[in-house]
């Protein structure tokens, strides 16, 4: 691994691992996939290639943040705004 990028790659791994703790399918599942993904690229030496892969990793971080936000938003909406949902479906009360 190219030396100056070594720190960045390590930081990327740590950041992704931290985010993966809340992954819906489990932190262990996430960690396995994360390790696989990093190991797959362990022989890449071209700094430009490494830069591109690191940028991909940053995109994944953003995607995870969005995933977690959407999950929370949708749960909150369902829980607290049931009347809105019923209004949209044109139903007066819940069907039992």
């Amino acid at each position, binding site marked *: 691994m190219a030396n100056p990028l070594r720190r960045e790659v390590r930081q990327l791994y740590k950041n992704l691992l*931290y985010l993966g703790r809340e992954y819906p399918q489990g932190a262990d599942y996430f960690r396995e996939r994360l390790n696989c993904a990093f190991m797959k690229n362990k022989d890449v030496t071209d700094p430009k290639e490494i830069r591109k892969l690191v940028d991909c990793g940053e995109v994944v971080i953003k995607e*995870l943040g969005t995933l977690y936000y959407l999950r929370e938003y949708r749960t909150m909406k369902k829980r607290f705004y049931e009347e809105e949902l019923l209004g949209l479906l044109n139903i007066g009360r819940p069907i039992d």
Partner: protein
Amino acid sequence: MSRVLVGVKRVIDYAVKIRVKPDQSGVVTDGVKHSMNPFCEIAVEEAVKLKEKKFIKEVVAVSCGPSQVTETIRTALAMGCDRGIHVEVSGKDYEAMGPLQISKIFAALAKKEEASLVILGKQAIDDDCNQTGQMTAALLDWPQGTFASEVTIDGETVKVVREIDGGLETIKISMPAVLTADLRLNTPRYATLPNIMKAKKKKIANMKPADLGVDMVSRVEVLRVDEPPTRLAGVKVETVDDLVAKLKANGTI
């Protein structure tokens, strides 16, 4: 310029399945995942956004409870708050703590810190009180913009678009004021590891309710906690006519 106080509450994580204690005195909290109340996240995000837009100078995150709430304050700091205040409450006082005590603490802190705004989540997902913001405003005799889905600061006044039954209401209130955040106010940022690391340098002050002249005596006693009634199983029908007949029998159509 101005300073904003943001309240954050440590609650059982929204995704956890809640279990009632066998003695029906409360919910199981030991060993259960806790995190920041979702509406408090939205409140923090709004305060940080206002600071980024240069309407306010400093954001102070406040939480009341035992030592574990410092984790929640750290998350708020990682989201962009400048410093934190941990009001230590533990044991029986913490179990009996409710909107009345919290609002007294926040009113005292708002005066002490000379805050121009107090931003809170509209309610906590564990007690669903929806009272702390309103009580704080009343104790301070400040105007309140509750259920805010849009906040705009214009000089010494704030324009708040509120989510109410049947639509939206726009009000203009003067500062200092109390705002409570509703779900659609903003999209809270996720506190990533680099932010958490940076936040470690930020200070969290420690104090007790007595330092603010607040008595924690509760006027409310929890008698019993029950699980909600189990949902009846759904009924499968074979044809559309069956469905229509069942709906008619049910009185739905």
